[in-house]
């Protein structure tokens, strides 16, 4: 036992907790340098407030409840828009990946729509929906739709045909073939789509909120600009970064759980 311990010691020497912290060294260092630059007056606070000021602004907004409310509103819009656009994209991806007819019928149209930058629709969307919730949800759903659609379609189309033949030989029904062969085979590609979509989700939402909204993080930043509250503007930007990181981490955890068979997710 002790022999095994001493042999495996060099490997366990790298503490796993430390591994998780390594990724935060660079962001923390940047904040530290930034703080020093502000305090010494190297960067004027009119251009960029010190991190301590930003934190103070955050603390005040937190106490007033404004911060939590705005984050919650944005989070809610993002998730609902993502769910709507993601499920429609997934459904079209499935249909067009599995059925020739469906693909012939809709793929060309979808490809044309895809090439319109969805943010270019903002003026039209404001005319249609005003600055209502549905305007933001519509834009987020539209932005999220394409990466999920394209990657689901690609995933299904590239499932190994030899495995499908194998499934047929072993008497799998269509449903079983989908559940046991096609869907798991398409899953890695679907996850690529989800991670792309999460990025687009925040981008769309923030742009939509800065242009047409009366609540949310984007609105908070725009209001702050009106009143020259540069610390709140910077705070909003930092929160976007954190939320984006959070969404990405969540999808990674999900990926790791569902793709544990994949060689890329196996330890050693």
């Amino acid at each position, binding site marked *: 036992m002790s022999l095994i311990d001493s042999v495996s010691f060099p490997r366990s020497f790298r503490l796993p907790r430390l591994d998780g912290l390594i990724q935060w060294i660079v962001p923390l260092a940047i904040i530290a340098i930034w703080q020093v630059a502000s305090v010494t007056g190297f960067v004027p606070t009119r251009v960029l407030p010190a991190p301590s000021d930003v934190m103070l602004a955050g603390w005040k907004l937190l106490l007033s409840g404004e911060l939590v409310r705005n984050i919650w509103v944005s989070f809610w819009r993002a998730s609902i828009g993502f769910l709507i656009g993601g499920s429609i994209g997934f459904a079209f991806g499935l249909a067009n990946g599995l059925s020739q007819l469906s693909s012939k019928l809709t793929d060309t149209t979808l490809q044309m729509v895809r090439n319109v930058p969805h943010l270019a629709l903002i003026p039209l969307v404001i005319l249609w929906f005003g600055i209502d919730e549905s305007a933001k949800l519509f834009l987020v759903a539209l932005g999220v739709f394409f990466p999920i659609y394209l990657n689901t379609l690609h995933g299904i189309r590239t499932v190994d045909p*030899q*495995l499908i*033949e*194998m*499934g*047929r*030989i*072993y*008497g*799998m029904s269509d449903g079983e073939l989908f559940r*046991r*062969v096609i869907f*798991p*085979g398409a*899953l890695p590609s679907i996850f690529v789509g989800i991670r792309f979509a999460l990025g687009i989700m925040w981008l769309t939402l923030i742009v939509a909120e800065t242009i047409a909204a009366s609540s949310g993080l984007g609105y908070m930043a725009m209001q702050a600009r009106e009143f020259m509250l540069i610390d709140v503007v910077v705070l909003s930007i930092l929160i976007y970064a954190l939320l984006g990181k959070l969404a990405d981490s969540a999808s990674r955890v999900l990926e790791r759980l569902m*793709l*544990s*068979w*994949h*060689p890329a997710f*196996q330890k050693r």
Partner: protein
Amino acid sequence: MQTALRTSLPETELASRANFAPHARVLREERPAQTSGLPLSIRALRKSYGDNEVLRGIDLHIPAGQFVAIVGKSGCGKSTLLRLIAGLEKFDAGSISLGDAVKPEDIRVMFQEPRLLPWARVLSNVEVGLGRDRSSSDAHTRAEKALTEVGLTDKRDQWPSVLSGGQKQRVALARALVSRPRVLAFDEPLGALDALTRISMQRLLERVWRDQGFTAILVTHDVAEAVALADRVLVIEEGRIAHDVVVNTARPRERGSAELAGLEGSILSHLLSADDRT
């Protein structure tokens, strides 16, 4: 899948064809007394892909439990013949008959690639082979038994990606065996393996065939492998059976013996002489 439903010959004709197969009786003594295998009768079988006629009238009778190897140059139609027997493709004319009351689970195919599901553990990959029975209560025990037969019990909970090429192919063999097939078709199953793994896999194939007594049809480009394993070697040239060679050597066979080497040489010269003619 409608693998089993073919145009089948009338009973009487089938029986008479079985009697006419000249070497069938000689070979039967070598095999286990009770064979679970199915006899196979093929008549005037034709298959084309577009203008390319791949099989130009194959007539063949394989007695139950026989181990038949099919050799030939690439593109001669040997894999097509195997795919037709396994019911993977439809033929244009002729008939394939496997006796009556054949279930889909009775015929299994093993390919050059293992074709394992990467997202299923080894044991559930084997369970796939049970066909319609895979949700039955004894699926686990049956799959475990098949894994034991190929000597991979300790890998049951592994992902396929961690297995070696030979181990993957043994899992594929266990998956093919788990439903106790009566015809097992091999499409160059050892083609991608290294020489040593290949020899141990050949021994494994021979052992399970002797234990279970299914009818085995092995397509291979390796003539040495064909004479080492088979009761009978068919040489296919240009879509027809050009030679039908009986291998009477007693089992277990000694690899590299003069007898097998002589047989291998004569089959190879058949193949090469066909090359000269074209």
